[in-house]
């Protein structure tokens, strides 16, 4: 198992390297630079700053310099948040984003699996159709539309929930952003669960369980749920990536000072090291979580369990 995990991590190195190269090139290809202000600086000051941050070197030299730092775990200094390294900024902002993402993921799993299972058990009835119609809607509408609509109805009109982040305290302020982040995932997981649950319920071993006198609840709990979870489990990798992407938008909309917001600011300000640092951090996170998903797969399905 350990050997397998290590091999997988080694195998991820080329992927990460490709991500770094692409991100590096794209960041530098964007017009403008980190120190462009509205008011033009005198040429020699600009040259000094560029020299201090090695921006006057050829691109490949900058890249080699960056890689050298990266290997030693140094993501470099932020260009815009002076006196802070990128690592410090990530360490400050990530816990909040993690909290938000984990809650959204958990909510999506619980509600998605429950709704999907219910739809499968009530296949082709009204409740199935309504659930699946809602799911289709959830998939079709992007987060940046859902979030403002939620705010408009639940916060502004009905005043049930706080609308923004700052100025509010307690767990309630998490609700809207988490829901906005989770909704598309709930919808997708519900559809996946429904389809796989229908397959599993039609399988021979479920027929055996029925022949043994097990009721619907016992069949779902002891026989169908585990195998029906396999497609959902393999979707968790993409789901995590989708939630990371979604959090960038949601944090911006609700004004949450998480990593997503830093990322957007960094990109707008051409804060090369900050953007690169967050991209590399997220890419590593996705690789690690996918590894966790694959290991979980073996825990559920004994046929592919590794010795």
């Amino acid at each position: 198992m350990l050997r397998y995990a290590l091999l997988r991590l080694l195998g991820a190195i080329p992927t990460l390297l490709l991500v770094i190269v692409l991100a590096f090139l794209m960041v530098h290809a964007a017009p403008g630079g980190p120190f462009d202000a509205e008011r033009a600086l005198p040429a020699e000051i600009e040259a000094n700053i560029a020299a201090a941050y090695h921006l006057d070197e050829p691109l490949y030299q900058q890249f080699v310099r960056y890689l050298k730092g990266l290997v030693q775990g140094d993501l470099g200094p932020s260009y815009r948040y002076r006196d802070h390294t990128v690592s410090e900024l990530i360490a400050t902002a990530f816990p909040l984003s993690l909290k938000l993402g984990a809650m959204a993921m958990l909510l999506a799993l619980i509600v998605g699996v429950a709704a999907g299972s219910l739809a499968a058990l009530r296949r082709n009835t009204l409740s199935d159709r309504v659930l699946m119609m809602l799911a289709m809607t959830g998939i079709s509408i992007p987060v940046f539309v859902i979030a403002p609509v939620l705010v408009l109805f639940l916060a502004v009109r009905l005043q049930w929930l706080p609308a923004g982040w700052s100025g509010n305290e307690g767990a309630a302020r998490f609700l809207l952003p988490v829901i906005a982040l989770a909704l598309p995932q709930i919808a997708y997981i519900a559809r996946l669960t429904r389809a796989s649950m229908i397959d599993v319920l039609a399988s021979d071993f479920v027929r055996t369980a029925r022949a043994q006198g097990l009721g619907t609840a016992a069949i779902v709990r002891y026989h169908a749920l585990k195998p029906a979870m396999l497609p959902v489990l393999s979707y968790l990798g993409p789901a995590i990536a989708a939630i990371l992407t979604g959090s960038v938008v949601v944090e911006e909309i609700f004004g949450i000072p998480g990593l997503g917001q830093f990322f957007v600011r960094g990109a707008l300000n051409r804060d090369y090291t900050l953007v690169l640092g967050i991209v590399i951090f997220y890419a590593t996170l996705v690789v690690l979580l996918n590894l966790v998903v694959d290991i979980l797969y073996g825990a559920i399905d004994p046929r592919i369990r590794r010795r």
Partner: protein
Amino acid sequence: MSLLELDGLTIRYGDTDVVRDLSFGVDNGESVGLVGESGSGKTQTALAILGLLPANATVAGSIRIDGTELLGASEKALNSVRARHVAMVFQDPMQALNPFTQIGQQVGRILIQHKLASAAEARARVIRMFERVGLPDPARQFHAYPHQLSGGMRQRAMIASALIAEPKLLIADEPTTALDVTVQAQILELLADIRRDTALLLITHDLGIVAGHCERMLILADGRLIERGATREVFARPQHEHTARLLAAAPRLDRTDIPTGPRGDTVLAISGAEVIYADRGQESLQAVRGVDLTVRSGETVAIVGESGSGKSSLVRAALGLVPMHAGRVVFCGTALAGRVQHRKKAVRRGLQLVFQDPAGSLNPQMRVASIVAEPLVVHEPAVDAETRQERVIAMLEKVGLGTDYVHRYPHELSGGQAQRVAIARALILRPKVLVCDEAVAALDGTVREQILALLREVQAEAALAIIFITHDLSVVRAISHRVLVMYLGSLVELADNAELFANARHPYTQALLQAVPVPDPEHAGGKAILAGEVPSALRPPDGCAFHPRCPFARDICSAERPPPRKIDGATVACHFAEDLSGA
């Protein structure tokens, strides 16, 4: 009052009746065979008794257990009957057991669900039941997953799950169809021994099994009960002509009309064939371990063996479909390249194949005419469309299909018709050698007879050499001039048809012949001579691969691999072949 009473049972899907007005009873403790070909409604009947039919089935009539009506009963009422009064053993235990759950948990769940035991008691009872059904080391097997067990052991676990709640009626639906013949004999003996006073409704297409294991029998055809009676009576004096037809087509080892046609020169010679599958780096599986085989024109050689015997690998290697690790293939005097893609077109057309699954081996989007014409398009592109069409129609007529079939799609054909199309496709290039890989295994008895007759016919016409791979000894008897018996990749015995069945020399061949159920209640076969199952080919036993199961094994058998030796025209790989002949 009978234990089970069916009265006017009718099962309908849409406008089609799959079971019509079916009435019969099963008394406490008796064993009844429910027999019919595929589509006769026997499995539908079993599912109806347990209330397991799909929602789109309409059911009418009456099904009573101990006088309690089950048709129209609530799911809750049915659940209290299932397992406790009526339990079922399904056909394929790999599918019918949950692959995600330990077998002990699956069986124990039944006791807990029916409140017959607490979790701790359930575990103890499951282990006792596992011991009764012959699962070795039951306390450890409790935690095994289905895929970790052999086919026979899985079916033993399935039987344990059916008997754990001590039902009064056990329904077994083709319980041994997915198993090898020596394991089938063990499982049937186990069912007979273990059920004690539990009544048995045994559903099967195999009249040999009914002859050996059922006191009474019911015969279904097209959803109707056409005959019933004591097994001996029905076999001795069948009343319905369909029953007589079924009995005539029943697989037998004692038929006398075995092929004797003239045989010509050697067309295909395989020597020293070794096939090794070496994926995953570490473990390599030796599927064929040095086998020689020659086939002459006009001759049928049957290759018979249980799963893992290497019979398919040997032939696929000869055809160049899998790489041969060592050995030579000579076709009509020329040595062939190892892989089929390196062979000349003229050679390739000389070796043709017919597969097991007739529907699956035809492209569902092509019409029959194009399917049969395709080899011609590839190998004789110069032929104009009109001539090609004529040859296709002539070929279809030869295999017994008229011009009506030219424009049909594969799904519009029955299993037998589809297999005729596959044979036409193989023969249109006038090959020298036809390989049939379990080509009649998916067909019902009467259709199987027709296809075997067709193969004999085309062989006589074109002096065709046929290699027939099968696990079924009755097919071997019916079709072959010579027989190659294989076990774990090695030649066990190679002999003429008549000689092999009259005077088998190898203990494995003898046990195989004894294990085949005989469709005759007076001389029941199906004896389980061999204990255990075929070992994994990943770790074959030392010496003679068969020695751990061999009743005659001596010290030398585990030390030295017996080389194939010629004895009176047969080739046998056994240290004691002379002593055991006719044993």
